[in-house]
């Protein structure tokens, strides 16, 4: 036991280098765990974006592109699909429900989605969770809008506030539909999905604000007043995508073929779950690269410790010699140095773990608001524990190198060692 207190005092004596070593291990551990946590949670929230939808139909094009614009509100459709095709698909005997989606306008950087009431009924995320209203109700009037949680909180909107949609993605004065403002009637509860960043209005509302905008800007005198637009036929000619739910899932590929072979219009139907996993396997490459880099950071951290302990050995030859003179065996010296590396690693890992959690605690709301990534702060997963275990074991093993050197030196050196 006295040898332990001696070891502790020896560490305290070199506290500055020791602290730096522990800190560098801690940082590398925090980075590795952080990357791992982020990877895991991103994958989960990615896969949780949409569920319960059997097929997504859009104009003929790439599956990933269709998924990105219809679900993630990223990128744009290359083509729209006609209302007639939508009707035909909705009438297919195996189709239980459909949700039409019309994209293309924006409100202060947030995408506007034109849809109908079925969206709130059928859209599911995570484990088949339905959308719920934090305040208000679905749209019923032509100029009603329902905001995603983030839109409402970031722009500070409340029920009853008027909002003006912009034509296309750019919010510039001449491209605003300011003659037909919408009124906020509902705010959705937070979902952690792109729904939070969406402004929802009715398909007819989208049509109404575009009457007379065929040239891309309001034609003078051609754009009817908000009230007159109500009296017009506002059935859209085309929409951007359709979410499809089937009566029986076993018919999924059958309906997919029906859509893909639909003769009147070139269409694409995708299985959102299958396309998500394809997309993830693409992203997975970058993800692995990130993990490899952070693994190397841990290796560098451990090497830093090795260097620090090895360098200190030269300064400590006299210390070792004194220990030997008061009865420590060479084996004790070996255990002492190895134990020191072990303690440094353990402290490093513990500090790293704490550091990560403090960081996560601070960063969580920011990540959730800015990137829609919700990171659960919880007990480490089995995988994380095994990662930490591997780091500790390697730290202790690496300690054998300086320990062996100290052992040899303590055999060779006498009390008269010159340092």
């Amino acid at each position, binding site marked *: 036991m006295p040898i332990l207190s001696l070891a502790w005092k020896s560490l305290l004596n070199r506290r500055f280098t020791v602290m730096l070593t522990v800190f560098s291990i801690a940082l590398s551990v925090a980075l590795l765990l952080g990357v791992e946590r982020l990877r895991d949670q991103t994958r989960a929230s990615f896969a949780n974006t949409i569920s319960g939808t059997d097929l997504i139909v859009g104009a003929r094009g790439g599956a990933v592109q269709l998924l990105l614009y219809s679900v993630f509100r990223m990128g744009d459709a290359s083509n729209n699909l006609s209302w007639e095709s939508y009707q035909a698909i909705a009438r297919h005997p195996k189709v239980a429900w459909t949700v039409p989606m019309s994209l293309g306008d924006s409100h202060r950087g947030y995408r506007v989605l034109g849809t109908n009431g079925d969206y709130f009924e059928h859209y599911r995320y995570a484990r088949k969770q339905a959308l719920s209203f934090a305040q208000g109700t679905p749209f019923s009037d032509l100029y009603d809008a329902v905001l995603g949680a983030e839109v409402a909180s970031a722009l500070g909107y409340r029920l009853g506030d008027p909002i003006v949609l912009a034509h296309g993605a750019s919010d510039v004065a001449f491209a605003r539909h300011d003659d037909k403002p919408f009124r906020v009637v509902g705010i959705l509860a937070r979902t952690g999905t792109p729904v939070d960043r969406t402004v929802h209005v009715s398909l007819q509302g989208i049509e109404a604000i575009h009457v007379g905008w065929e040239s891309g800007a309001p034609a003078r005198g051609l754009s009817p007043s908000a009230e007159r637009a109500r009296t017009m036929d506002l059935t859209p000619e085309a929409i951007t995508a359709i979410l499809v739910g089937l009566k029986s899932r076993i018919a999924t590929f059958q309906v997919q073929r029906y859509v*893909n072979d639909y003769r009147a219009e070139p269409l694409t139907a995708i299985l959102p*779950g299958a396309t*998500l996993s394809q997309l993830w396997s693409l992203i997975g490459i970058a993800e692995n690269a990130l993990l490899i880099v952070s693994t190397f950071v841990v290796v560098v951290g451990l090497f830093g410790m090795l260097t620090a302990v090895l360098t200190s050995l030269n300064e400590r030859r006299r210390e070792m010699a004194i220990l030997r003179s008061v009865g420590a065996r060479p084996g004790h010296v070996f255990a002492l140095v190895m134990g020191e590396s072990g303690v440094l690693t353990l402290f490093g890992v513990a500090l790293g773990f704490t550091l990560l959690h403090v960081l996560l605690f601070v960063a969580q709301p920011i990540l959730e608001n800015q990137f829609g990534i919700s990171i659960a702060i919880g007990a480490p997963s089995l995988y994380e524990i095994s990662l930490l275990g591997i780091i500790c074991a390697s730290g202790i093993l690496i300690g054998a190198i300086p320990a062996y050197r100290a052992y040899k030196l303590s055999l060779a050196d006498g009390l008269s060692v010159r340092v």
Partner: protein
Amino acid sequence: MYRATSALTLSALVASLLTPNGLYAADEHAHRQHAAHVHGIATLTLAAGDHEVQVMLSSPAANIVGFEHPPASESDRRAVAEAKAKLEDAQRLFVFPPAAGCQTVHSEIQSELFASAHAAHAHEAEHEHEGHPAQHADIVAEYHFECATPGKLERLQVQLFEVFPATEHLEVEYVIGDKQGAAELGHAHPILTF
């Protein structure tokens, strides 16, 4: 990637000729659509619900038979017949976990190559000297299984790569209950885990 997601397959063509939609095919407004066709790559869809499992394999005929022209010689015809027999052996191609207790109920193999096997003689004489350009041909195989314990359907071993070594990749999309997924199988990893 120049593979289209849709496979306008023969079965679809046949089906569309039989349904009112098919009227368009003979129409002068015939739509010119061509599904991508990459030798070495095949697609598989699997849908499972209740006790039923439906599997559909679409592959360029080259992967299965070795050629895509209408069978011209006796050895061609033999190759086509052999390939068809191998494809019909569903239990050899798809190995479900024994615990799931899956039985083949039905299998159906379709291809331009089989269709022309009967009429080949008549057409050969006409076309042989015209330098008829080689057409691409696809094979579509549909299988229907019944599984006693569908809860045990955890994976599927696809032996396609052993039976038809010219098949390099198999792109799989599946629906099992509520779960959808995609995977890419190959010689080195022929097992699909759901």
